[in-house]
């Protein structure tokens, strides 16, 4: 029984079958990659996991509880954090403030009216946030205006914002998309480190096979909305069906 269990999920958009009978099981404390060509339904699947979309049929269980019908913030409170394809951060806030918001969310739940308490007095949360920034090598940037940072920094900040919440499951949507090689390698190192130092499950959607094969312990290949195969990286590498899905009939 995995921490995340997707059973018979179907999703249609008008005439388009975006997801058809998707079954997926992500085991606890593993890195699970979901790959597939464009339009394979990877993002739709991800959106079904975080509450942005509701599947037509099927079930999505996380940690023994259904996530269906829950809003994104409720799902986050269950322990799922999500990193977006293009970094989603609070551009008007400083790096430190960006870090504090998830800390508040973790401590106070989805709503708390701390209207009088000063942010500066939240020493404990600030320590947590600083520690996390240190981990991602961004402590020196903590007072920067986050919108003015490079894309790589924004991505790292977003990752740090997710990690500081100590999620049980971290969802990564193409975390290295548009990154330079060096940045990509840094991200891989970072994720490896995270995996080694924490009890965390990571589900990752990725195009870059270098990233996938450096990190993943299990890989699910999605094509036309259905899982094609699920196996270990070694087995996936040479799998004929995968080649077919990626390169078309010609292969």
């Amino acid at each position, binding site marked *: 029984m995995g921490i995340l269990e997707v059973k018979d999920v179907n999703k249609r958009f008008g005439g388009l079958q975006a997801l058809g009978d998707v079954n997926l099981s992500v085991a606890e404390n593993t890195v699970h990659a979901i790959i597939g060509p464009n339009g394979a339904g990877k993002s739709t699947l991800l959106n079904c996991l975080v509450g942005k979309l509701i599947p037509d049929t099927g079930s999505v269980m996380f940690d023994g509880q259904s996530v269906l019908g829950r809003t994104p913030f409720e799902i986050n409170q269950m322990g799922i954090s999500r990193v977006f394809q293009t970094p989603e*951060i609070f*551009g008007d806030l400083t790096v430190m403030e960006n870090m504090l918001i998830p800390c508040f969310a973790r401590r106070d739940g989805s709503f708390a009216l701390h209207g009088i308490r000063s942010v500066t007095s939240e020493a404990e949360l600030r320590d947590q946030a600083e520690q996390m920034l240190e981990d991602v090598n961004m402590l020196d940037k903590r007072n920067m205006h986050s919108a003015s940072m490079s894309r790589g920094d924004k991505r790292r900040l977003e990752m740090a914002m997710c990690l500081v*919440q100590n999620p049980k499951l971290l969802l990564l949507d193409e975390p290295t998309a548009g990154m330079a090689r060096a940045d990509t390698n840094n991200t891989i190192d970072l994720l490896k480190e995270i995996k080694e130092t924490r009890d965390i499950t990571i589900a990752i959607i990725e195009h870059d096979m270098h990233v996938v094969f450096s990190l993943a312990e299990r890989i699910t290949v999605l094509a036309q909305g259905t899982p094609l195969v699920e196996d270990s990286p070694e087995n996936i590498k040479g799998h004929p069906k995968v080649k077919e899905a990626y390169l078309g009939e010609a292969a």
Partner: protein
Amino acid sequence: MFGLNKKDGSLLLLVVALVVFAPFLLNPFPESSGWAQFNAGYPDLMQRFVIFGIFAIGFNILFGLTGYLSFGHAAFLGVGSYAAMWMFKLFGMNVLPALALSVVTSGIFAILIGYVSLRRSGIYFSILTLAFAMMSYSLAYSVLATDMDGPDKQGLLQKGLTGGETGLQLTQSDPRIFGAQTTADGNIPVPSLFGLEMRSATELNVGDWVFTFSAGYYFSAVIMLLAFYLSIRIFRSPFGMVLRSIKSNQQRLNYTGMNPRPYMLAAFVISGMYAGLAGGLMAAMDPLAGPERMFWTASGEVVLMTILGGVGTLIGPVLGAGAIKYMENIISKINSDILHSWFAFLPDGLEDIVVTMIYPFIGKGWHLTLGIIFMLVVIFLPGGLVQGGQKLAAMVRRKKTDDTKTATTEPAE
């Protein structure tokens, strides 16, 4: 100090100083000089400065922090005024219970209107709030002002709940259960704080200057300072930070485990209560509540005050409120006679030309000047008056450093 950091603390101190010494600062010109027209240190206007300051500070908590532009905030101002008036009519002239009822009533209205309006964002939200305020205005002006008192038309509701066009006023036949119906000399009592009448004032004459210290002003000022202090605390609190993050990226906030809706509603209600407090104070300073307080132009005015001063800044809305009220009350009163007296030193022909050129912009043309100022500020100072102040300060500072540089003959870069 008071849980504020150094910068906020000194800002608060500055505002306290400005407010306490306002009767002096706003009356810089001697009474007998021609410039005395520009003095603004009389009780009514000073009260308006701080009351609209409260209104704008509250509006800024919603608009400045969350970016949600309410175009119907005047509804809460009006509701606050009506609530205070009814308190005066029914129970007595003490201002504290009246203000309490204003805040509570406007808070309830804000919960209802906010709950519905916050289901939409952007301009759709703005129009929803506008629609609610305009409905309140229209009903207060007409249906709610019709006689609800039965055929004899003598009682408490003879002009309905709101008094309509003429506004809700005190009368000698109001019950005022915990106070006197009429004063000893047969007049309607005035609002007071445990016997301290809001309209009482003391004057200080220094040479050709007259400074007026009004009880009503200082009472309003204390409330404004409390409101300002509270707004600083809110700006610097986790709650305030979450509100700013709503403006910045609502999607991220959602995926970070926070529910934006109750935060928005809380901000809306707090801001509505500020407006209600301002409305209650208006009634306490001047016991009358008219429906035009809820008209869309009144809502527009607070939007303009906030933008003019600087959206999202702590002090900006107060400055914006002051600027607009100053124009409305001082510039509008300058008539051609006064102009002629100013320029009397010029030769006759030239005097007429100068007066003719200035006349369209003052007195009855004060709206024109206001419009031009709106345009100039937003074109040249996108951050409002606060940005203007910052630029000025930066200029002074640069000049200073330039001076020191020259002094130490550092090589130019």
